[in-house]
């Protein structure tokens, strides 16, 4: 199976704090991968390095075979990154925003426009297409940012807390969109603090703490190795509170 994302000894230090410590990971294509960890574990730093927003101190992130450090332009071409704070412009309208994003990824207007309109309708933003983004609720902003990520049809999508701020209906809509997107052979990596979401949606789960991957596998694999945890929440808490969890590490720290 092709590899969507490969992290090779990825490291990042901020002053004396080692945010990410020699992280190795392989995520195959066509999968929804949940990247979990407590606050300050290094999730966002890892994802920002993968998206090319942060330069690693050591190691590399290989996106669909392209090195983010050596050939960032090629690596970014098929990647979308959605941070927890949506990257929007307060004084742009939704269609103007999507046109801008399509321009950044050099998507032809004849493909971008119908897709933009379809995405706005699908995400329930068509009625507010005439409003500036600054008037949107957090959930609406999150949905528009998701539309921005989907407008350039990436093969790998990285989402940091994509469901925060969404109401029940919107959260279900986004989950369905992501699952449909994965079913078409694309890859999604998401972080979340809601364990039920990771347990329900993700094919594989990686747990990071103190910048290191402490467990990795399917929910069943993690459950089997834990022996105690009934739910992902209990497994997660057990791992994180124990501090180290070499027993849980999959050989080679990768989802192969």
């Amino acid at each position, binding site marked *: 199976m092709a590899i969507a994302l490969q992290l090779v000894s990825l490291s990042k230090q901020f002053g004396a704090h080692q945010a990410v410590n020699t992280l190795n990971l392989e995520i195959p294509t066509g999968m929804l991968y949940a990247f979990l960890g407590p606050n300050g574990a290094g999730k966002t730093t890892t994802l920002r390095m993968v998206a090319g927003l942060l330069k690693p101190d050591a190691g590399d992130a290989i996106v669909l075979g392209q090195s983010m450090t050596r050939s960032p332009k090629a690596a970014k071409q098929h990647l979308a*990154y959605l941070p927890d704070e949506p990257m929007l412009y307060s*004084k742009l309208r939704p*269609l103007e925003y999507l046109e801008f994003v399509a321009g950044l990824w050099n998507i032809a207007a004849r493909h971008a426009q119908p897709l933009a309109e379809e995405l706005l309708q699908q995400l329930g933003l068509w009625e507010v297409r*005439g409003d500036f983004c600054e008037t949107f609720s957090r959930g609406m902003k999150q949905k528009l940012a998701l539309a921005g990520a989907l407008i350039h049809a990436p093969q790998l999508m990285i989402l940091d807390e994509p469901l925060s701020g969404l109401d029940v209906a919107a959260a279900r809509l986004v989950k369905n969109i992501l699952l449909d997107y994965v079913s078409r052979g694309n890859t999604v990596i998401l972080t979340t603090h809601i364990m039920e979401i990771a347990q329900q949606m993700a094919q594989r789960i990686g747990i990071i703490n103190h910048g290191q991957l402490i467990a990795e596998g399917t929910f069943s694999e993690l459950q089997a190795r834990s022996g105690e945890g009934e739910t992902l929440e209990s497994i997660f808490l057990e791992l994180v509170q124990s501090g180290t969890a070499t027993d849980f590490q999959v050989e080679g720290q990768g989802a192969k």
Partner: protein
Amino acid sequence: MPIKQGSLPWLLRHELRLWWRMLRGKWVLVGTILFCSVLLLLLLGVWLFAVTQLTEARSWVLGDLRSQFLWPAIWIWWGGFLYAFVQALGQSVVVLGDRNDLDLLIASPISSKVIFSSRLLSVAIELFIGFCGFLILPIGLGVLFGLLRLLGVFPALFCLCLMATSLAMLVMLWFVRWLGAKRARLVVQVLATALFALLFLASQLPSLLLDTAQMQAIAQQVAFLFQPGGLLSAESWLWLPARAMFFEPGALVFTGLISLGSVWLTVEVLHQTFIGGTQESLTAKAPRSHRAPRPFNTNLNRVVLLKEWRMIWRNPYIISQVVISIIFFIPLMFLLLRDDATNQFASLGAIATTASPLIGMSLVAGLALICLSGEEAPDLLRSAPVRGPRFRYLKLLAILLPIWSLAVPIAILLMVQGEPWLPMVLVFGAATTYHALLRLWNARPVALANISLQKRQNPSRDVVLGMLEFVSYFGWLGLGHQTGQGHGEAVVGLAIALAGVLAIAYWRSRALGSTLGF
């Protein structure tokens, strides 16, 4: 004695604490102590000099205080009122809207009248403290001369601050109900600055444009208003607030009653209107527009330029601030370009060559704030498969193209008038590009939504950038002036000096790296 929680003094103390911390309290305290110490020494020195040397002057001043100082007092009072009103307008936007804490307070068991009273009083007290900083010296001097009645300035000024703040809050409220909260904020912010700029211009232009004879003719035409019994005579009721400054009991009571009445009225109106839904209107959306979608064109250069121009067009506050700041330059231009010997202005070409770089650079600073420092989604740009320098130079172009287009009508006007136009075009183009590069290489990110007037020009408080820009402004002002006068050697000298400053800016950007985040 402990202050009762939830009372007006308790809430007022909270408001003043917020203000104090916004001023970076301890530095203000150190500055105030230093200022007061110097002031005290000055006062003592002047007093000693006066009592020993100026006996004639002393007897003149100790004459009828009101007849000697009524008109200066009137000017001070109305000027002070306008200043306080403009300041209070800006503060009203903050305390009634931008601070976003009214929901918290109104949801608490504290009476909304207490809440609004504390807001109004805090703004008035802040203004009053500001006035005191300016007036302690002259009033202290007056008191040392024996003019104890001048102590009336302080209660009169406090009344003035109460009235100005009340009026400003009512105006702010009226704008919110008339235009909606978002537009009201913008209009009030623009109005606050425009009033100052226009007053400044109005105060300077008559003396610059009219000669003494014309001024005297105008004065004769309006003289009847100032005759005894006239609307603006010394006895007019209009000047009662100013006469309160001389501790006239009647005037002081009148001013006090007016100010208390205005406070009561404002608090009542605020209480009624906020309960009636103004708070909701502060966050309400503007009516939706559903125009047919315009066809996409996703060429990178086009989308970046279009996006930047949309951001500029949709940020009229910053642009209006820049335009208003240009108004302040106009009297300077008149002074600079008038030949005192002949009382004639320089040629149109010389005026344009001198003034245009300054105006162009001011505009560059404003647009760079929106397009470079104010970039809202640097992560989006960095995650796109496009190299950062391309974005930066496209943004530079987005700043410069509209500004360069302003030079076209000026050049055409000069051509039509038969004046040399090429020097103006060259100086304008070079100065604006120069200033844009200074910002591109040294600007820092800033959240436009939170930007205040004080931080506008150099929002990151970057002292080095401030110095570089200061040199740039005056360097190009001089270069434009010398070009207009045809002084080639001076032009070359200034150009070399400016190139040196640009080299420092570039070296600094290489040393620090880009901090814009894209």
